[in-house]
């Protein structure tokens, strides 16, 4: 495979295992590519938080297109012009969107060059920028589930380009900064950013290999280091998203909590009726192909046979669809099975854990509460009868923390995950410890050993760091693979292999007992 996208999130990592492209070399008949990855529609992560520099606003960071490698030119990562990107808000707690922000993109491609830009691009409108995207924002609102007339907030906004390197962009930050647009009391940004997600994917998905249990000592490998995503980041006044259209008075206010998720839609076709295609506005001609609220819900709770259906569904169906998987999570059984399994330690030697982990496997109403209904007294939208829905529920009345604790609620920091989700929140460690039974008196210091992003976040909008440039990035750390002698004048495609694992010092198993939470 020339370049299997290194996943920007767990979902993509799982999906990457499914990639299979069929084209029979002996054939002149045609087989369609079998790639089931759809990176340009793939939601990688969604964040919703109250920013320190904008305490009266809702900030949403929605990321798509995993595994962006800025050095991947001339195939620069971008949004798909033919898809629709959404950020949805539920302020009543029924799992149905009350407000949707729709983002639609348009690519401008040069006919004269394959390059993204000539050298020395100075501004986002610089004609030397040959390939660029523009986008428009439409705000849809719903009253009792019925759509009102959508309103176009802005159109023809610039998208921050791929950071190909210092020769093309002597001052990338300045050029990308010009993609921050202030519209009324809101701010919007779309384009490439460094992926805020951090995880040791390698360990987590090798059936939870031992590195998972070294979380308290670090030493994990941030498999997302230097990768980028395409983000849509927006910051809107609280009153734009609350159910009574008023600002939030405090954490106990009735309108304080909203549910946030992101999704993508693609055009449906009628197999034998091309005339259907042009029927753009018709109801039912768009299909949701991806959605993401809470991180890791789809990846770790939803069984693989249900994942496509989950991506197509909406949060109002989650009570029937996924609640059951949280009540008796397979992931809990997997963790309990660890002591009986041979695990591979850092030098590849098999070892066994000498302890029992005692993770509760049934009746996990604590997980339903934390992930789906919201926690009482903190982030329930409907406080009397909260419906389980997979949305990121943020109580906007909770003041942002000056120094965020990466364990969020687990670390006593009420401004962090699962009250919304901040960029700093260590979703993997929190998730593992929650499933291990943090709220069931079974506190285990498990984690993936990666505690923070490889790049510091910005203090100001759009918060995620600028992407590493293609010229400087080290994602690939590529080694040339062995191959047969090349005939003169021939230019065989040499596959780029995934990086070889780095040499790491052997460490012994860490006994996973005792809370890590400060």
């Amino acid at each position: 495979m020339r370049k299997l996208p290194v996943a920007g999130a767990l979902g993509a990592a799982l999906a990457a295992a499914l990639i299979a492209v069929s084209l029979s070399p002996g054939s002149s008949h045609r087989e369609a590519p079998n790639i089931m990855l759809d990176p340009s529609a793939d939601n990688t992560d969604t964040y919703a938080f109250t920013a320190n520099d904008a305490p009266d606003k809702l900030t949403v960071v929605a990321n798509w297109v995993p595994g962006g490698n800025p050095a991947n030119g001339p195939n620069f990562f971008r949004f798909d012009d033919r898809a629709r990107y959404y950020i949805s808000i539920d302020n009543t707690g029924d799992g149905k969107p009350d407000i949707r922000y729709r983002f639609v993109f348009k690519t401008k491609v040069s006919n004269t060059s394959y390059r993204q830009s000539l050298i020395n691009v100075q501004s986002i409108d610089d004609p030397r920028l040959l390939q660029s995207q523009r986008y428009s924002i439409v705000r849809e609102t719903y009253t009792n589930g019925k759509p009102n007339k959508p309103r176009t907030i802005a159109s023809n906004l610039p998208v921050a380009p791929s950071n190909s390197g210092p020769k093309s962009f002597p001052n990338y930050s300045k050029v990308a900064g010009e993609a921050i647009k202030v519209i009324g009391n809101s701010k919007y940004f779309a384009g490439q950013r460094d992926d805020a997600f951090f995880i040791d994917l390698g360990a987590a998905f090798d059936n939870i290999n031992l590195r998972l249990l070294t979380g308290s000592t670090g030493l994990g490998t941030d498999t997302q280091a230097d990768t980028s995503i395409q983000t849509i980041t927006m910051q809107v006044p609280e009153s734009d998203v609350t159910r009574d259209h008023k600002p939030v008075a405090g954490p106990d206010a009735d309108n304080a909590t909203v549910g946030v998720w992101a999704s993508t839609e693609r055009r449906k076709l009628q197999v034998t009726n091309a005339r259907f295609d042009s029927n753009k506005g018709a109801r039912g001609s768009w299909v949701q192909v991806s959605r993401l609220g809470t991180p890791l819900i789809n990846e770790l709770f939803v069984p693989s046979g249900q994942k496509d259906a989950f991506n197509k569904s909406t949060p109002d169906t989650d009570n029937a669809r996924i609640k059951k998987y949280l009540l008796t999570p397979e992931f809990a059984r997997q963790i309990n099975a660890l002591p009986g399994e041979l695990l591979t330690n850092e030098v590849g030697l098999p070892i066994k854990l000498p302890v029992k982990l005692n993770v509760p496997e049934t009746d996990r109403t604590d997980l339903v509460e934390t992930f789906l209904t919201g926690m009482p007294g903190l982030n329930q939208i409907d406080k009397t009868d909260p419906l389980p829905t997979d949305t990121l529920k943020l109580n906007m009345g909770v003041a942002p923390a000056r120094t965020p604790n990466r364990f969020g609620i687990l670390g006593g920091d009420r401004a962090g995950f699962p009250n919304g989700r901040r960029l700093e929140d260590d979703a993997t460690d929190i998730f593992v410890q929650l499933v291990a039974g943090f709220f069931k008196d079974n506190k285990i210091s498990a984690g993936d050993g990666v505690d923070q992003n490889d790049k510091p976040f910005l203090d100001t909008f759009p918060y995620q760091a600028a992407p590493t440039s293609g010229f400087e990035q080290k994602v690939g750390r590529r080694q040339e693979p062995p191959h047969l002698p090349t005939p003169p004048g021939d230019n065989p495609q040499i596959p780029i292999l995934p990086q070889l694992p780095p040499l790491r010092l052997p460490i012994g198993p860490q006994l996973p007992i005792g809370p890590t939470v400060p």
Partner: protein
Amino acid sequence: MRRIARPRVLLVPAVAFVVALGAFQALDGSSTTARARPENPDALTKRGNNELQRARETADPARYTRAETAFRRALRLQPRSVDATVGLATLALARHDFRTGLRYAQRARRLGPRLARPLSVLVDAQVELGRYGPAGRSLQRMIDLQPSLASYARVSYFRELHGDLAGARAAMSLAVSAGAGAPENVAYVQTLLGDLEALRGHPRAARRAYSAALTGVAGYVPALASRAQLDAAGGRLAAAIRGYEVVVRRRPLPQYVIALGETQQVAGRDAAARETFALVDAERRLLAANRVNTDVEIALFEADHGDRGRALRLARRAWRDAPSVRSADAVSWALTRSGRARDGLAWARRALRLGSRDPLVLTRAGLSARAAGDRGAARRYLRRALRANPRFSVVWAPRARRALRALA
């Protein structure tokens, strides 16, 4: 993707071993993982898929055998694995064993009734087996569930088979747009988009699509082959031959070898063409040794350039294995070339029963009709062949024109 951390030093002997074998071995994380932890069905499935992908990149059919081993081991460990079952279906389809492909696809569908992936192989198998009604329904289910590059590209092909070239083009352009981040797949659908443009008589748009594919993936062989075909059709024979030579050097597949030989023939390089044609059977045998069935390609080749009796035998076998419009076309042409034009014409109607506008099939149908004495049908087919693009092929377009003139 990397799975377990292993110290670099352990990998060095592995590299040396592979070099000693003289093979391109995918030394990626998953295959080392699969070797180190044979009990992991996911890693085995991934390894199988990697082998399929490498088979696609290198045209080395031995990869198929390795892929099969990996998928079978995965299934032994996890008999209800949807992914490994889809893998075996994909493999069978790649080898043109469509019935086996259909069986695995149906099994995968039973194992994962709410997933889009099993539908993709199911559609492919049904199309190749000539079950177009069920194929259309499976495909509609697939795209309703998950519009994506994979389903758009299949919709395009389905429309093309039914003669809707404009609709096919529209669907394929959606596929191209949907492919960001997966360069090889984008290059593939861009090439197919180019082929559709060429069919529609828009050679400049076709060339732009091929250039885009080659920009995305340098030296992308399907795009080079299509561009050579475009050059040949446009009368730029020297450029076409140079292009095909590069293609054949990299992917010595029968259809590329045949295209090179035919272009050499048209250019008057008969000796070179004979040498090229001699390669066809060697390649066929190599593929057959890895259980890849090329009956349709070889039947058409033999009908035009070799043993017509053999052409008919192979075409009939292809039809028995997979009664599709593609194999009907091969039977038709083999019959006509064997002097049984009346039967050939009947089979040509089968080949065109969906309303195909493939100019090669239409030309063969026209020539069959002419040989069978049905001048009206011959004129209709030949005119239709030449309608969208009068220069669709350097070999077949002149034949169609000559025949049409003779009928006037």
